[in-house]
């Protein structure tokens, strides 16, 4: 809401500076976002001196001037040929600036002469109604300065954010009334007396057919109006409030709307067939062409103002093209009404239209202000326009507004506010708010008709707190029973995962939950893949953020790309967040972990010892994770994920359930994301992991330092290269070798002199007894047996 202080001061005595007024309003809940001067926003309008005037013949009425701002010289054309002399100081608008009645100044060329701006009249500059002369300043005035600064014109305007509950503040008068309530500054009453005999009888008929949607409808006819440009003071105020002028009648309706908050609508009376004004619901199939050129099909829930044949206006929202007041209109019907805010809101949502009018109706107007606005408009027409006659007001108001009674006690007020607010203070505030009656301990408050936001005792408490001053209310600490609940395991788990990855040298990233369908399609997924069936947004910001992610990969890959394009080649990142699948009810949300490794591991150091991430870095991270969490993750080669290199990937299993995958991205996908190989990536379902984690948390068995020494024996053998290490390990495990503590793989070698298709492997067996030092012979005996079985089973040869 824009509030020019010059206009505001007509209604309330302003006893403070603009900044102080802004602070008062802000601290009362009406945040003043800025104080600005609309004149300063017109652009570069400066003082210039005329250096040279010439009148080439082909320009006829116009002349060509050279003007200077003290630094630069501009050429400008003007029609005020006879007023111009060298040495004058004039008002010059540079291209790109605006006149106060919204005309844009541009370069223009007339008959080959180029004009670099415009010399302004007092009217164009927004200073006085004079249009037919140039604005000529004192010759001693400095050139090159802002015109308004030179003239000392200051029009501070407050930009106020009005909360949606306070429709009563969407007007200059509303703000004046509020300032009066807060500060006690004197409010000038608004009373407009009309003489009944001065008005002729209204010749038409007004019928409200839907009393649920229209509570009050008033109007009058003005005959013989001359439709033209508005008087200067109206234009100026519309300009200060950022409104574009249309014509005097429309401007007056807008003026009253700004001043009093009551939307008015003006009809061309002769377009209302039969003089019948019907307030009714739209009929199926009815259409309406709006003033802005849009045509809509009306909905049977929409309220319209119609004549006996067709709808003319979408009630309270926007007028139709056909019945609009234009140049040739002679007789005008003025409407002032009170519509149901809910119904207006639903119609504006349905048709996606918001106007100054609907904005106010949605936020509730003052039912008792309907006639006042009509009278105010009439007064302005009477004082400033040419017209012939004005009819009486017809006011259809079937059920007059009744303010609710709100009952509240001092005890209630004190309990909610939490301090002993003084009785006199409360009563004083209640008196200022509305009608108050006391019934024993209970106050009955009837708020004025413009305060429809006040309906509950809590609303009254807020008013008391607000007028008492939020700042004055003490700060206390709640008195409550001491209780505490266990932290939620899932939250602790996610936190733990993040901490683990941090300790692994990963940086956490947070990417958007909505992704680009194109990133998903780059993953080469099978058309049946569940991940392609993502939930789509109805109204995405852009197609790049248009579906809910079903995997964290696109976010990680896009992040890697963003980094790689900005000097980061080596990356270890992870994300913990939700992925979303369609499901019964709202959606299935699964907490998921994804991570990515790119480039070198660790920092490059001067010692030249650096290495790229490889498969065993990836696997090691997952193994360590499983170890820390004490969950039996299994890594099964090879993953079927179509975006992973099969030979460098595995699926991650928890018992029989696949809960993730890890591996190297296929080259072509890496290239499509403009990344560099090798690129390692993994994703795990944390919800599934959590279930297992919670079960295994009781299985911790602390190890003690050894009491007796261990001893080891190695076996080096050559065997078939396709025998997996895991197969060997599983075989050894099922042998149930006595005293065997663990087996380590200490060397693995392929190539000369090992024959083709074979590999050499060295295993180290650690033996230990709990209760004694094992004797060499004992170990030897066991180990020989192990070696024998191993060689036999795998047809291995000793190395």
């Amino acid at each position, binding site marked *: 809401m824009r509030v020019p202080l010059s206009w505001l001061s007509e209604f309330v005595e302003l006893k403070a500076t603009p900044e102080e007024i802004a602070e008062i309003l*802000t601290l009362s*809940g009406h945040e003043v*976002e800025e104080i600005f001067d609309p004149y300063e926003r017109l652009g570069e309008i400066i003082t210039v001196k005329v250096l040279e005037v010439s009148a080439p013949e082909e320009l006829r009425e116009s002349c060509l001037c050279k003007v200077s701002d003290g630094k630069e010289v501009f050429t400008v054309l003007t029609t005020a040929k006879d007023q111009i002399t060298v040495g004058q100081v004039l008002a010059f608008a540079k291209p790109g600036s605006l006149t106060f009645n919204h005309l844009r100044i541009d370069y223009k060329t007339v008959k080959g002469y180029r004009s670099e701006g415009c010399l302004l009249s007092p009217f164009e500059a927004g200073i006085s109604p004079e249009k037919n002369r140039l604005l000529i300043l004192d010759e001693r005035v400095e050139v090159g300065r802002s015109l308004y600064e030179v003239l000392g014109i200051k029009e501070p305007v407050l930009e106020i954010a009005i*909360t*949606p*509950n*306070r429709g009563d503040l969407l007007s200059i008068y509303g703000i004046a009334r509020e300032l009066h309530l807060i500060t006690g500054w004197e409010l000038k009453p608004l009373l407009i007396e009309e003489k009944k005999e001065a008005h002729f009888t209204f010749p038409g008929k007004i019928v409200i057919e839907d009393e649920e949607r229209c509570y009050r409808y008033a109007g009058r006819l003005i005959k013989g109006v001359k439709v033209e440009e508005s008087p200067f003071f109206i234009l100026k105020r519309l300009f200060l409030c950022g409104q574009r002028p249309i014509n005097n009648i429309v401007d007056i309706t807008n003026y009253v709307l700004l001043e009093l908050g009551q939307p008015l609508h003006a009809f061309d009376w002769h377009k209302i067939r039969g003089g019948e004004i019907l307030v009714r619901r739209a009929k199926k199939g009815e259409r309406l062409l709006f003033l802005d050129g849009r045509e809509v099909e009306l909905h049977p829930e929409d309220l319209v103002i119609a004549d006996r044949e067709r709808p003319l206006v979408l009630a309270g929202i926007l007028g139709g093209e056909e019945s609009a007041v234009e140049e040739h209109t002679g007789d005008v019907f003025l409407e002032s009404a009170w519509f149901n805010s809910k119904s207006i*809101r639903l119609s504006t*949502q349905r048709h996606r239209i918001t106007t100054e009018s609907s904005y106010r109706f*949605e936020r509730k107007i003052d039912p008792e202000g309907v006639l006042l606005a009509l009278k105010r408009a009439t007064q302005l027409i009477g004082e400033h326009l040419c017209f012939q006659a004005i009819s009486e007001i017809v006011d259809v108001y079937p059920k007059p507004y009744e303010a609710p009674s709100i009952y509240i006690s001092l005890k209630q007020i004190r*309990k*909610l*506010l939490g301090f002993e607010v003084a009785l006199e203070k409360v009563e004083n505030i209640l008196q200022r708010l509305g009608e108050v009656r006391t019934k024993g301990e209970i106050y009955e408050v009837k708020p004025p008709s413009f305060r429809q936001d006040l309906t*509950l005792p*809590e*609303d009254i408490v*807020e008013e008391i707190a*607000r007028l008492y001053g939020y700042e004055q*209310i*003490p*700060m*206390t*600490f*709640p008195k*409550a*029973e001491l*209780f505490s609940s266990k*932290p*939620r395991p*899932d939250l602790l788990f996610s936190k733990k995962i*993040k901490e683990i990855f*941090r300790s*692994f*040298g990963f*940086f*956490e*990233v*947070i*990417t*958007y*939950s909505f992704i680009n369908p194109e990133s998903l399609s780059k993953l080469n997924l099978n058309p049946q893949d569940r991940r392609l069936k993502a939930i*789509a*947004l*109805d*109204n995405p*910001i852009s197609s790049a*953020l248009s579906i809910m992610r079903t995997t964290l990969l696109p976010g990680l890959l896009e992040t890697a790309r*963003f*980094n790689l394009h*900005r000097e*980061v080649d080596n990356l270890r*990142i992870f994300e913990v*967040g*939700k992925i979303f699948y*369609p499901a019964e009810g*709202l*959606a299935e*949300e699964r907490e998921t972990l994804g991570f990515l490794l790119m480039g070198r591991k660790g920092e490059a*150091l001067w*010692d030249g010892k650096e290495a790229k991430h490889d498969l065993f870095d990836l696997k090691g991270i997952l193994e360590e994770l499983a170890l820390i969490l004490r969950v039996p993750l299994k890594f099964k080669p090879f993953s079927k994920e179509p975006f992973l290199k099969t030979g460098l990937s595995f699926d991650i299993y928890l018992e029989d359930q696949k809960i993730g995958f890890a591996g190297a991205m296929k080259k072509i996908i890496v290239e499509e994301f403009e990344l560099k190989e090798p690129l390692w990536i993994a994703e795990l379902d944390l919800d599934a992991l959590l279930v297992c984690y919670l079960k295994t948390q009781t299985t911790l068995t602390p190890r003690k330092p050894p009491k007796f020494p261990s001893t080891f024996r190695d076996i080096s053998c050559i065997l078939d290269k396709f025998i997996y290490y895991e197969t060997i390990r599983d075989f050894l495990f099922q042998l149930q070798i006595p005293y065997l503590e663990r087996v380590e793989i200490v060397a693995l070698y392929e190539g000369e002199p090992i024959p083709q298709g074979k590999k050499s492997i060295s295993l180290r067996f650690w033996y230990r007894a709990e209760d004694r030092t094992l004797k060499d012979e004992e170990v030897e005996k066991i180990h020989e047996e192990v070696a024998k079985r191993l060689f036999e089973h795998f047809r291995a040869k000793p190395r």
Partner: protein
Amino acid sequence: MQREELQRIKEEALKELETLKDPIQLENFRVKFLGKKGKITQALRGLKELSLEERRELGSELNQLKEYLEFEIEKKRREILLSEEEKILDLDLTLPGRRPFLGGLHPLTQVIEEVCEVFTRLGFEIVTGPEIESEYYNFTALNIPEWHPARDMQATFYLQNGALLRTHTSPIQIRTMLERKPPLRIIAPGKVYRCDADVRHSPMFHQIEGLMVDGEVSFADLKGVLAYFAREIFGEKTKLRFRPSYFPFTEPSLEMDIGCVMCEGKGCRVCGQTGWIEILGAGMVHPEVFKAVNYDITQWQGFAFGLGIERITMLKYGIDDIRLFFDNHLYFLESFK
């Protein structure tokens, strides 16, 4: 073996002992005197030839010398070894070290942790809720019916399945209250979504919702708790200001401002020249909200608050572009290590 000879060995040994400078000399010295063929060892062997009397006398003297030399050798060895490593080597110690390179949590995660920690200290429990929500939980139950103009305050993303992306963490209030009975103290962090994108707005951002419901908890208590929170996060000396505001789900409602952290209240671009920066909205739970969750409004009252994590993080660290959080550039992330 004569006494004179012993005397000579002794003098020789003591004299030589003084000159020893490195472990090799020391070892040679040990071999020379105490080794298998060393002079003292030889001399001890030579004692056999002497009379019992002499043997005893010289023997004890030789053994004393042997012990003395052993002691001195050990002492000398320690001295040499210790002093040897007091030399400066030709290694450039100003070269950078090999860091164990820990990673880092996202700054938003860190601030969420920090805020949650402040409230868990006051006995608030952390809860969460779904990010894909229904109209009912996101709006209707919070006293924002379909026709309410307050819906304009939050540009909503709708989904093609009819649900929506929650525009605030407030639906968690409703879900928690429907699940439990008062008294209640919860804090609910999470992602929220609004159809908005520029330097100050991200279509996805994070909020923390707080709710306390008890028999007597009041507006003054709300002020007290919020002031405690602000000072824990922004420092003891943070200036605070409370302003009336409007949220459909609280009444009375307030907004809390802190003294601008950039200009310390003098007025700057960040605070729009006012010296104050809004950091959260709050209020007493609206009776309509209690009705929606079947709480007896004569028995319970409470407060709720909601704050934007990005905003707080931006203020805390002087960040001017919200998009930095979601670009996730390593340089940015590393600075919060």
